[in-house]
């Protein structure tokens, strides 16, 4: 569903690169704190900077000479809002992946108007604040259930267990699948396949060789599309109240959606709905462990303080580290001449630490208010569809966790290498007392 296919190369061989490295695998295998040292230097350049393509990609593109790095807060907001200059259709990842895979996975996040406008409308109503208030009881019940499960796992495993598998990844999985209408059993499989689908830089999930990796990624995509197609088929026969039903019956310009379109929506919602919230919860528990005084402040008035705390946890975690745009025409950005076809990569983690817009950005301050973080995007047409769902879930989960297990501690997070999602693969947890 890419409407604007920009054929121009990204950059040219004679445009000089910035000397700081943000393109190597080594850089993306360090921690966010280490990377921030480089980003802070790039922000000091006072403009956007030009860098070589990400190293040793799955697909090498001979026309790809690099990308502009958007590291400052104001520039990120500007790129986000200038959707006519900076397109999503040509792809939204920093890396090149096979077109068929991208097509099968990105749906609206890789569309530009007018198609984006029409397709986003089909799902908007399912994620409004009004709708979230209606399903809040269900979200809270799911939060109670996953904390029940965590307590059992702690007991089963002798007091120490994996927080990611036993808690963090379960809540968003249940909630997004309740909304979409994916039955228990199948939702676990879909979540697992999409974990594979986003781990293309992690041999543990996808193997070592390019062939293995591509094979495994295609397998994950085929599974998810198959599931979406069969569920949509059932709902065409027997409509229900869920999102798959409304997609199965929706029309755009007088035509119903194809199975491929429904499948791509399903994959996007599964990835966007699972991983990001999981990262926020995990990085959040780690932050509460690293900063006991902040935890104590929150525990003092959980209900009143939770909304601000959630915003700061989402800033701190910055679950999505990068999204890309592609210049649809020649234009200026932060004083630089941008050429049609240039890749422009936004670094959310950097903008969230930009001292010009966030005071004391390196401090976790759960009472921060207002908190103008851009974890959900810089306020453009692709602004996170699930931002209210994420906020409701995080409120429900941290309230439940800190009420029942106020002394829960987190171990060292084990990170998945990559430049897209800030993924914690595993992180042990235990009660202090």
């Amino acid at each position, binding site marked *: 569903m890419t409407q604007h296919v920009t054929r121009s190369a990204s950059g040219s061989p004679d445009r000089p690169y910035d000397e700081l490295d943000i393109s190597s695998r080594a850089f993306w295998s360090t921690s966010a704190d280490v990377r921030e040292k480089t980003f802070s230097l790039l922000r000091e350049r006072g403009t956007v900077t030009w860098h070589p393509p990400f190293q040793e990609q799955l697909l090498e593109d001979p026309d790809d000479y690099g990308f502009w790095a958007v590291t400052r807060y104001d520039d990120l907001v500007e790129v986000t*809002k200038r*959707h006519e200059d900076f397109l999503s259709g040509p792809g939204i990842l920093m890396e090149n992946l096979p077109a068929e895979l991208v097509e099968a996975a990105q749906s609206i996040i890789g569309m530009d108007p007018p198609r*984006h*406008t029409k397709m*986003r*409308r*089909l*799902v*908007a*109503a399912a994620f*409004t*604040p*009004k*709708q979230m208030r209606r399903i809040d009881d269900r979200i809270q019940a799911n939060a109670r259930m996953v904390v029940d499960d965590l307590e059992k796992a702690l007991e089963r495993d002798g007091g120490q267990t994996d927080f990611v598998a036993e808690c963090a990844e379960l809540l968003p999985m249940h909630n997004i699948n309740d909304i979409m209408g994916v039955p228990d059993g199948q939702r676990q499989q879909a979540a697992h396949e999409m974990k594979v689908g986003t781990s293309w830089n992690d041999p543990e999930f996808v193997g070592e060789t390019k062939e293995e990796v591509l094979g495994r990624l295609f397998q994950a995509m085929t599974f998810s599309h198959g599931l979406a197609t069969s569920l949509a088929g059932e709902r065409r026969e027997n409509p229900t109240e869920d999102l798959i039903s409304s997609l199965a019956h929706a029309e755009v310009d007088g035509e119903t959606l194809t199975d491929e379109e429904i499948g791509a929506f399903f994959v996007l919602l599964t990835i966007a709905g699972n991983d990001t919230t999981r990262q926020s919860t995990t990085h959040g528990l780690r932050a509460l462990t690293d900063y006991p005084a902040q935890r104590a402040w929150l525990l003092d008035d959980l209900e009143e303080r939770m909304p601000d705390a959630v915003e700061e946890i989402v800033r701190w975690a910055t679950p999505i580290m990068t999204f890309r745009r592609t210049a649809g025409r020649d234009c200026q950005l932060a004083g630089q001449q941008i050429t049609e076809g240039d890749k422009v990569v936004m670094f959310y983690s950097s903008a969230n630490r930009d001292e010009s817009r966030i005071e004391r950005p390196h401090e976790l301050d759960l009472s921060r208010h207002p908190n103008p973080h851009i974890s959900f995007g810089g*306020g*453009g*047409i692709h*602004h996170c569809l699930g931002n*209210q769902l994420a906020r409701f879930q995080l409120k429900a989960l941290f309230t439940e966790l800190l009420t029942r297990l106020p002394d829960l501690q987190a171990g060292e997070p084990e990170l998945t290498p990559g430049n897209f999602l800030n993924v914690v693969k595993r992180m042990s947890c235990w009660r202090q007392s």
Partner: protein
Amino acid sequence: MKVHIDTTRCTGHGLCEAVAEDIFEVGDDGMAHLLADPDADRRGEVDQAVAECPTRALSASG
């Protein structure tokens, strides 16, 4: 003050609702609706919502 919502542009992001939830609400049709004609003293928030709407669906007059 009169606020106009262009429903051919609005995609229900709710950024307007985040600015002033007692003025704007995204409804079950996935479009923003006015909960009330805002008083003149809410001009600042309305202008902010107009400026922040990513699809330029909002305008205010009077």
